[in-house]
């Protein structure tokens, strides 16, 4: 835990956040934090959805009904709903490194214990507790938003989130493969799947160790060290929570995120079984097709983040919002089509189109989130992330539980719901940047500084607690889009030249 040298490997802004994103570097602290966060998040996704491709085996071993399977799918994503908000606060208060590693190590036992499930009830419990690990999403986004500056924060968030989500696809390939190998060695089907679960569990544990050993919270060090040296003020939980919770934009994004990310979680849960049952494929083939949905995250979610940053250069925050609305609505359209298509090849093509749009929308959402609040970044990230899980819970409850709707009808109806729940984006408005239909306010006090400093009380400002927000507001002027008046920006920032 040594404090890093003042010179960073990447160009940085006044908060020491990197202004460039170099994918193939592992330089501490920025890129190293990136690689640690996406790998640990990937591991959690692998664990949470490890069950899905093996359901055809598990449902016979544990004597599950469609309702049991549906319920387990619902609880697997419901644990993280409130945990994500809590995680947001934990990041604000303790730092993403400790918060995420603690969560990962505390949920690893649930994955290890998947091997000893014997009934629908124990299956439900195991999936519930394993699902808590999806909360690491919040710490991932928080960590990226702490390490990377406004011009590249969308990209960093998008790649980290996307490559983590990749786990939901990779697991559909990995688990049938591991299961097959163990079964071919000589284990019976009903034992082979149990042994297979040790792989994701061990991976998860090891990734948490890596985060603890090699990671650090902020460019300048860990929270613990920074608090002691006085550089990071100890914030009050109640105010952090208050400013996050009372920001209506956080709530709208929570809803819309439920219908891009939430939908992605639902599909991760049902798609292998859907292809297995509807098209009479074998387990491995259904797994490969299901995997391609999640694996698209390699490019799609990062693509969304990059697109958000590109659009913001010219059109600012308004561009980010419009792009998000268009992409997510198109995702809904492809979802409707996917439920209607009856041929195998048609289904696969539409599914891939659907995955591209829905996952890009996730990336685009987290191009907007870092700007909603500075003081309560963690809480807002947590609310949005939690909203994603709520969307998954609600959607599975309504359409994918029991035998009321066939899976294909459920998928079509889900598409319609996506389109409806994306409309609230029209309501988001930033006084300094505008909204989808309105331009920025003409009032003199409609500035970035006013927006971010309004989160601090005057007595806190006297003590200088608000300085980080002040730096952030200066750096976020790029969200106005178009040509920016370089006179307003301090000369030591390098990123303005590109805007």
């Amino acid at each position: 835990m040594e404090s890093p040298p003042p010179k960073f490997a990447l160009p940085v802004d006044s908060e020491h956040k990197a202004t460039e994103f170099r994918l193939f570097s592992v330089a501490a602290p920025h890129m190293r934090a990136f690689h640690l966060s996406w790998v640990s998040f990937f591991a959690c996704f692998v664990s949470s959805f490890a069950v899905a491709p093996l359901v055809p085996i598990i449902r016979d071993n544990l004597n599950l009904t469609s309702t049991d399977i549906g319920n387990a799918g619902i609880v697997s994503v419901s644990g993280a709903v409130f945990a994500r908000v809590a995680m947001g606060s934990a990041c604000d208060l303790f730092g993403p490194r400790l918060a995420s590693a603690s969560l990962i190590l505390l949920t690893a036992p649930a994955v290890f214990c998947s091997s000893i499930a014997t009934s629908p009830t124990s299956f439900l419990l195991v999936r519930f507790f394993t699902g808590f690990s999806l909360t690491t999403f919040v710490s991932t986004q928080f960590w990226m938003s702490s390490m990377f500056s406004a011009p590249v924060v969308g990209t960093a968030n998008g790649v980290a989130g996307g490559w983590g989500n990749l786990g939901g696809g990779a697991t559909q390939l990995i688990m049938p493969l591991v299961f097959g190998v163990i079964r071919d060695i000589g284990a019976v089907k009903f034992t082979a799947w149990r042994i297979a679960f040790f792989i994701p569990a061990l991976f998860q544990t090891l990734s948490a160790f890596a985060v603890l050993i090699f990671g650090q919270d902020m460019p300048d060090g860990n929270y613990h060290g920074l608090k002691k040296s006085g550089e990071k003020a100890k914030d009050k939980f109640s105010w952090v929570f208050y400013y996050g919770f009372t920001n209506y934009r956080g709530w709208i994004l929570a809803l819309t995120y439920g219908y891009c990310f939430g939908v992605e979680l639902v599909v991760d849960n049902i798609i292998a079984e859907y292809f297995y049952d509807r098209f009479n494929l074998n387990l491995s083939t259904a797994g490969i097709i299901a995997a391609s949905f999640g694996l698209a995250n390699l490019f799609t979610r990062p693509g969304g983040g990059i697109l958000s940053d590109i659009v913001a250069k010219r059109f600012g925050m308004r561009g980010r919002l419009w792009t998000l609305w268009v992409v997510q609505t198109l995702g809904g359209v492809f979802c409707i089509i996917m439920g209607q298509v009856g041929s195998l090849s048609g289904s696969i093509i539409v599914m891939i189109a659907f995955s591209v749009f829905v996952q890009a929308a996730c990336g685009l959402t987290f191009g907007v989130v870092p700007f909603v609040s500075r003081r309560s970044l963690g809480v807002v990230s947590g609310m949005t992330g939690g909203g994603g899980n709520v969307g998954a819970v609600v959607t599975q409850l309504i359409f994918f539980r029991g035998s009321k709707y066939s899976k294909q009808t459920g998928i079509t109806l889900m598409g319609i719901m996506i389109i409806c729940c994306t409309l609230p984006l029209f309501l988001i408005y930033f006084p300094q940047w505008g909204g989808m239909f309105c331009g920025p306010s003409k009032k003199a006090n409609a500035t970035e500084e006013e927006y971010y400093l309004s989160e601090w009380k005057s007595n806190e400002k006297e003590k200088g607690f608000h300085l980080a927000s002040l730096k952030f507001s200066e750096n976020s002027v790029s969200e106005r889009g178009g040509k920016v008046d370089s006179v307003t920006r301090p000369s030591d920032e390098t990123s303005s030249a590109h805007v």
Partner: protein
Amino acid sequence: MAARGILLASLLFFSCLAVTCYGIVLFSSLPSTLVVTASAKQGQVLKAGEDKIAVTWGLNQSLPAGVDSAYKTINLKLCYAPISQVDRAWRKTVDNLAKDKTCQFLIVSRPYDGSNKAVQSYEGTVERDVPTATYFVRAYAYNSDNVEVAYGQTTDSHKTTDLFQVQAISGRHVSLDIASACFSAFSVVSLIGFFVVEKRRAKQSQRK
């Protein structure tokens, strides 16, 4: 008698035609010409991987001769009773045999022996991958094109009588249980260990 025989033969002939025309075999089109018995009685519980099941099958002797002329192979299958199909779409009974999921486990497959009122039999252990459920036994007769042409089953047409249960293996082993417990404990303990180490390091750097 001869008229009945002709009627049955022509029915069989037309259903075969239907099969070759559309390639789809409907279960409702198959005649029940085989008599099948199983050693498991109503309500009996067999343990997968341990208990044996004995099945016998043969042509219904009250039928006219020549009915079984097309039969080449007989497959005996373990089939789900309706109670085990509730809320489980992957075990659904569908008339189109290509899509039917009622009978998923093959007990034995034998060439048909139609000679002289023969009754064939087989005894074997219930396979270890058979799940816990309620079952009956059904035999399908296939012709030389490997298309179903007839069947017989141990239960009645409504699948309510002579149903037996199979108790599956759990798949668990003591070694797995121990490994799960150990690794789980290890995760939690190592987290505590990390915290302790960090606190110590913080104290040391404070003293410096």
